[in-house]
């Protein structure tokens, strides 16, 4: 839990993109989804979620629209753009390479 708010900067963008790849969602939904998928291991500090969303929007990876939730409430929904999809797959590859590399180092140490 303690580590959760310190999600690496680049990683946060990746997680948001991944969460949105499944379905368009509002901000609160994204934070819930990441928390749920990580089995509560990752909890996104909302203070960094929205800046990340705006940043991604500015880069053209996501776009947003106001629509109504299942409970008939107005919420801003984010969805991936084509550019966002491309970014997601390359970020995913990057992350794998990075994680594998870190893994190799850790294995050698052990």
């Amino acid at each position: 839990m303690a580590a959760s708010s310190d999600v690496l900067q680049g990683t946060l963008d990746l997680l948001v993109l991944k969460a949105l790849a499944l379905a368009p969602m509002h901000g609160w939904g994204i934070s819930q989804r990441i928390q749920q998928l990580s089995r509560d291991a990752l909890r996104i500090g909302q203070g960094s979620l929205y800046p990340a969303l705006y940043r991604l929007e500015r880069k053209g990876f996501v776009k947003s629209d106001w629509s109504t939730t299942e409970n008939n409430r107005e919420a801003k929904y984010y969805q991936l753009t084509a550019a966002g999809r491309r970014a997601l797959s390359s970020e995913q590859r990057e992350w794998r390479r990075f994680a594998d590399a870190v893994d190799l180092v850790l294995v050698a140490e052990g």
Partner: protein
Amino acid sequence: MPSVTSVRMWLRALFHRDRIERDMSKEMQFHLERETELNIRRGLSLDEAQRAARVAFGGVEQMKDASRDTRGTAHIESIARDIRYAIRSLKNRPAFTLTVIATLALGIGANAAIFTLVDALLLRPLPVAHPEQLVIVSDPAQVNNNNVGSPVTDFVSFLLYRDVRAHNALFTDMYASGGSGPIDVKMGAGTDATAEQPRARFVTGNFFSVLGVPAYAGRTFTAAEDEAPGEDPVAVLTYDYWQRRFSGSFAAIGSVMRVNDVAITIVGVTSPGFRGDIVGQPLDFWLPMMMDPVIQPRMNLLNDRGWSWLMMMGRLKPGVTLEKARQEISAIEANAIREHLSGLELSQFDENLEQTPIHVVSGARGFSERRAEYGKALWVLMAAVGLVILVVCANVSSLMLARTVARSREMTVRMTLGAGRGRLIQQMLIEGTVLAIVSSVLGLLAATWGTRVLLANVSSASNPIAIDTTPDARVLAFTATMALASVLLFGLLPAFRATHVDLATSLRSQGRNLMGAARVGGGRLPFGRALVVAQIALSMWMLIGGGLLVRSMQQLLHSDLGMDRDHVVAVRVRTARSQYVGARLAQFRRDLVDRVARLPGVDAAAFADHGLFSGGACGRHVDVSGFIPQADSERQVACDNVGPNFFHAIGARLIRGRDIEARDLETGPPATVINETMAKRYFAARDPLGATVTVDSVRYTIVGVVRDFQSSDVRGKPRREMYLVFNDPTMGETGQAKLSVHVRGNPSRFVGPIRRAIEEVDRTLPIAVDPVNDLVRDTLSEDVLLVQVTTFFGIVTLVLAALGLYGVTAYSASQRTSEFGLRAALGAEPGDVTRMVLGEAVRLAIVGVVIGVPAGLAATRLIRAQLFGVGTIDLPSLSMAILVLVATAVVASYLPARRAANVGPLEALRLE
């Protein structure tokens, strides 16, 4: 690498700020509500659920800020917000805003106005192709004795121009131009055609091609057009003349005008910006040099080396430096002059050349006599308006400071809440910038108007000045720099001062007023006081300089010129190209004198060739009996030809001998009167009466000695002068019959009667009648300009300093209201409080004076050249200046002092 999307987002962020902010709040709100709902479902109470949600979310505002940062418009947004805020808050304080804008506009406008003149006259290059390649050979603005002709300027003869042009290898080409004498122009063919006297110049056929000036309409001269005398009767007009005289009609091109009764075809018009190669002098059209013998017959200007009347300008070949031209061209010119000299004249020429070399100077800014005439005065004015803008900035600065002190509570609160000092300073600077921009625009408008007024003031019919005063890019750039500098000056200081707040102390002292003001922004405004002292010191500067100029002006306008300046009227009747020549002209002069002398109230009238302050002068080489000159320069004497009763008619005093009399015109040896300086130089202890002076092999007998008087220049040192009897009608040079008329009473009243008397003799000739003092004043136009403008700005700075002092006194008095109340309660008389407040203001003024006087005295050395008849330390004007300043200080602080004295103890307590 910004993508299209991101640019669009950025623009959207910038222009739809409000909607984005609303969206963001809504989104955060939604998030918080969902979080709260979740917490409630987990079993928390509503309160706890909301609190937990907010904690989990973090600070809403920080969040928003961080999000705004990702949009990349935070900085611009804050500026835009500040601009809106500044405009709103300025609108809310119209009195403050109007005061600041008015004073700033005045300061900036004054600077822009003077700079416009400085730029047009002193800095701006000629509007021609590559002006930097132009070179003036023999600079008419300089004094040079090398050329034959006028000893005071450096003109060349046409033949000399031909020699230099033929021999030089450094110029692609060179041209010559010379002013015409008085000419008249008739338009149309009928007998009722209007005659006017425009200003024309004779130029060589390559004038326009060397300068690279194209025709605006029609064509300019071709080189082939200036080959043979009298062959090409054509003219090119200036744009201004075309507009004024022909209303810009294209039909004018190809039409014929009669110039001195010679039919001349107008072939073209030059562009609006080009006013000739002489800066500051109005011009109407150009004529080919070769037309001179036809248009001005009897002058023989083209074939006589004795007539120096032309200016020369060359265009350097690419790669040739001015320095190289200076060496080679002056050698060529010197050789060309030498070729026609021999014996004594040759050795004298070489001797002179050692002292005054031939001037070869850059021609980029064109020729200008006005530049020499007004240059110094303009720089003095530039310095004066520089002082004005400093005072203005100090004033605005203290106004802004007073405002920010009034807003200190707001500042303190905002800084306590974490607003950065930089943000507050930015906000204040933006407020300053808004003020400066509005003021600059107003100032520029005022400047355009102001320069016209200034020019109209110094221009006179006899001494017109024509320069381009429309603000160009340079003037705009100057004004913008001015505005920016003032913002920094008046905006930055108070901004730093006001945001330099000791938070703890200032919060504690807010509202605590008894026996001491809030110490925000420096307590009782020591910074404001420093500004007032600076303003007073600067005004002191201005008053000292202005006082000296005014005193000098009085001397110039009223000094004893050695003749009766207040009772002489000067008359000029143009006889050139009239029926009056030879003996008829001589008779005409006598008739005029006889007629005018019969007018009631006229004491005496006399004719002369040049007379008083007519702008003309002549010099001769003389041989005086019994005097052996050591050098040629010792033979030079200024001279005039005068008729009977001349000295009586101008009110000069004869020391010895007699006036020129009527009998001198007839028979006997020609007579002359010499002045005191000439008598002392050539005769020392000998008696000059009866001695002879030989001029052009005519021997004149000295019949009188006259006390020195100024005949052409108030400032001139007395020089050797002689007055030869005007008995040879062919001797006159000026083409005018000139009379001096001595009258009883105000000379202005005689202008009309004298004119009518002359019209009785001949009503067809152009007549000018002026009191001599008016002509004297014309020669002093730049002094008048200087005095009027410095006086005006002196008053402006004084008023500003008074306002500043008033402001500071009123503010500090209001801050001490409770103290005064307490004093009153303890038995202080109202008089005591008044004296205390007044004393403080006067102390400030005295500090300003003490700083200002030495600084001012040091600076007066810069205007020494402009002064006449006063030293740079002039006690009367200095003490007057100090008196005026201290009196102003008392007046400015009297009201606040009175108000302070009337504070009752109850009133003071009620404030707590």
